[in-house]
């Protein structure tokens, strides 16, 4: 008997622009005490499925067009009256959300919030509720729960808040926990601990978990069964091992192949498009087919396997960029009325060097100062002390006018492609501007030609010239950002988390683009990311950063194979492993 059974669920969004089939004929079930991972890219309908079940979608525009959700064999969730549904929500089915920062009420103490579901759903005394809340907080790994329970959310770190959220969700002993991307906003080490806690709680309390995520690695780590969704449909479901070992649907095959892992040997990543052909009928229904030549295309890519170039020792040649003892301190406070100044040492004595034409990967957890380093090199923030030698000149001591000459030679690509293009300029305007400012090209028609060839270089076309940024998808926008950076013909590019906000299939395309450009234009990259697998894929050398300092630097292969520092080891261990060996061991 399954605990939750979703049958042919259809949720459509009706807007002025037309109907979007967000969830289109989805069926799957969860047994008692089972962890089911629902994986899909953004827009695949995984979160909508979750929200539909609990009646959490705003309607209109959302409308359930058909299907049934049976909970515990008798309740048909979709047709329950609001009061009965409320009694189930938070008591028998509870939910945790992605962002632990905004899901807790900043005015109430953690204890108030964890005890609240009990007081809402059960008829117990406040003392009893608080006792149980503290007990649950201990179970999710909040140390000194008795004392810390009286803190407010801002006194908790991100990981601790997510634990409090989990405690809040589980304190009523629900049968089912819906977890919507619960670890996406967290650092890998914190994520690893949260996943461990979730698995432990499942074993202890027998709660079933529906775990929604975009990250196949996380699913491999935590789930018993996997449901893969694509554009509103379930394309494949089965046990974790079977999905990873023997995927049958071309989309799943593509998804598994396009994800860089520690073992990836490809120089160019396969993409989902290598496996899958989609055809959209005029009425919005989709046909998905496997490309007949998928195997050939993969074989082609395998031929270009990177030779062991990532293992060569740090070269002794003159580096293009050499950073010595860089410090960036921020001061806050110190206003009119003489508040005490506080200094944050974002970067505190960092040495880096990048040889010409190579990629240095910079990894670290959020807040470690890696982004600040990138910005300091480009003088977007002012370094407090230290030297940044770029091709002989010390950038740290240049005045803004002298710096102008170097702005042409070094560029940056940011994390959020939505925020890094001016929404009021057409693509042509945005790409012509750097050419005009730096007097590259003769006259407007020559510049236009240059812009077109830039667009083609990043995989877009002249058809896009007169469009505005909001008419492009995230991946296309990031290509535009790359094109804009390339417009001034730089030799060095800082990639600041530039694929972190993307779905894996889009990420693979952008990574391939960066790799191709590095070869064709012999670019030098500083690749900043929190994702160790991606960093390993793109980098020749890797520097690991912690709390404003570099902990360890080595060439990529060696660093991942034999980390010398314990912090590096911890980071590597925390990355969810999706290799078959680990999976087989876990499945017993």
């Amino acid at each position, binding site marked *: 008997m399954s605990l939750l059974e979703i049958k042919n669920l259809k949720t459509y969004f009706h807007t002025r622009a037309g109907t979007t089939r967000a969830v289109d004929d989805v069926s799957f079930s969860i047994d008692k005490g089972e962890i089911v991972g629902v994986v899909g890219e953004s827009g695949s309908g995984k979160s909508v499925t979750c929200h539909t079940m609990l009646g959490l979608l705003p309607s209109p525009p959302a409308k359930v067009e058909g299907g049934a959700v049976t909970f515990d064999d008798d309740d048909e969730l979709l047709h329950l009256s609001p009061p009965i549904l409320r009694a189930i929500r938070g008591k028998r089915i509870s939910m945790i959300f992605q962002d632990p920062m905004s899901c807790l009420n900043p005015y109430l103490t953690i204890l108030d919030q964890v005890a609240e579901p009990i007081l809402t759903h059960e008829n117990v005394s406040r003392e009893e509720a608080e006792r149980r809340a503290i007990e649950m907080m201990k179970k999710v790994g909040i140390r000194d729960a008795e004392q810390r329970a009286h803190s407010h959310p801002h006194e908790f770190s991100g990981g601790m808040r997510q634990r409090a959220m989990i405690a809040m969700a589980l304190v009523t002993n629900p049968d089912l926990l819906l977890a919507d991307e619960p670890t996406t906003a967290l650092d890998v080490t914190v994520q690893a601990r949260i996943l461990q806690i979730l698995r432990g709680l499942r074993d202890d309390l027998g709660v079933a978990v529906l775990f929604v995520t975009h990250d196949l690695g996380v699913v491999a780590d935590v789930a018993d069964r996997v449901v893969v969704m694509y554009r509103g449909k379930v394309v494949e479901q089965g046990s974790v091992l079977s999905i990873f070992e023997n995927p049958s649907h071309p989309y799943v095959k593509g998804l598994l192949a396009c994800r860089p892992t520690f073992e990836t040997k490809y120089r160019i990543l396969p993409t989902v498009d290598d496996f899958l052909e989609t055809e959209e009928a005029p009425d919005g229904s989709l046909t998905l087919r496997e490309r007949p030549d998928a195997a050939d295309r993969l074989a082609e890519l395998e031929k270009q396997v990177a030779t062991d170039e990532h293992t060569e020792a740090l070269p002794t040649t003159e580096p293009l960029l050499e950073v010595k003892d860089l410090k960036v301190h921020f001061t806050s406070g110190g206003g009119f009325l003489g508040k005490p100044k506080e200094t944050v040492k974002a970067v505190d004595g960092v040495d880096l060097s990048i040889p010409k034409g190579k990629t240095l990967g910079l990894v670290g957890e959020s807040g470690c100062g890696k982004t600040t380093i990138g910005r300091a090199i480009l003088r*977007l923030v002012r370094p407090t002390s230290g030297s940044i030698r770029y091709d002989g000149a010390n950038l740290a001591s240049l005045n803004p006018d002298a710096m102008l000459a170097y*702005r042409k030679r070094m560029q*940056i690509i*940011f994390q959020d492609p939505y*925020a890094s293009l001016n929404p009021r300029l057409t693509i042509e305007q945005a790409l012509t501007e750097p050419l005009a*400012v730096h007097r590259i090209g003769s006259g407007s028609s020559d510049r236009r030609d240059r812009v077109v060839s830039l667009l083609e270089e990043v995989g877009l076309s002249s*058809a896009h010239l007169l469009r505005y940024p909001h008419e*492009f998808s995230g991946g*296309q926008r990031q290509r535009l950002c790359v094109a804009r950076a390339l417009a001034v013909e730089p030799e060095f590019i800082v990639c600041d988390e530039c694929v972190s906000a993307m779905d894996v299939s889009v990420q693979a395309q952008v990574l391939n683009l960066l790799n191709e450009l590095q070869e064709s234009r012999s670019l030098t990259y500083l690749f900043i990311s929190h994702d160790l697998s991606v960093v390993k894929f793109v980098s020749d050398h890797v520097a690991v950063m912690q709390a404003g300092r570099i902990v360890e630097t080595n060439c990529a292969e060696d660093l991942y194979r034999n980390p010398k520092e314990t912090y590096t080891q911890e980071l590597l261990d925390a990355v969810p492993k999706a290799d078959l060996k680990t999976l087989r061991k876990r499945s017993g």
Partner: protein
Amino acid sequence: MPKETAGVTKHGSSLWKDARHRMAQNKFAMASLGVIALMILFCFVFAWFCKDPNKVNLVNKFAPFSGEHWFGTDALGRDLFARILYGGQVSILVGLIATAVSVAIGIVYGAVSGFAGGRIDAVMMRVVDTLLAIPFLVLVIVLQATLSTFSGDATNWIVESWGWDKEFTGRLTNVVPLFFALGLLGWLTLSRIVRAQVLSIKEREFVEAAVALGYSKARILFRHVVPNVLGPTIVYSTLTVPGFIMYEAILSFLGLGVESPNSSWGVLIKEGANFLETEVQLLLLPGLFFSLTLFSLNFLGDGLRDALDVKASKD
């Protein structure tokens, strides 16, 4: 949602175009726009074909509605319809000119303050705070009085050097100080709004990208930052137009704004209020034109706010 086109260069739709489209679907806002257009047409075009609004005819005072005097006449036998249209000229011009002046100052001041940051920002904002601490109408009255001292000289100068009609010039120089007094002081709140917007826009990555690409500060400010704060600015300024018209009316009602024989809606309402018990149409008719215009401007402002809401057009 991105759409693929096969090799054809297609004009994209800018955020302004999207906003126009959304605006066109808002019936209230479009109706308001129509009312405002009609009002402008009446006051500035139709008025030329009307009777002389200042022609006194004491024999025919308080005349009832008739073919000759559509809205009757006032206490001095002047044609009320003509006076309302001419008064509308002053009231509408007050709204538009004062808004234009205040928007120009407010955007530049707020943008520079927000973009420069640090000490410059602190000093500029303290100036705004100081001015905001003094009652607005007091400042306007003082500034208008100061500007008015030059109006006699200005009249003579214009008449001599440009050869304009003396009476017309005199009427013009009588009202212009009020326009500018309102405009020169009305930008305070707007500059704060612009500054707040600039502060958030300048943290966006496209501004950092512009710095990294070596663009000059002026280029970044006026090409990349300011166009992105125009939406909220336009919305706020449509809502200030009725505010300025109202201030003019208040000042005129108090006898400090537009002086007789010039009329404005405020002047007419004040004159009408004297005969509230016997000749109520003298108050109601100018009041009707006045409120209709204010209503329409407010509806238009609301429509623009919905149309220009950046959140709705983000994806």
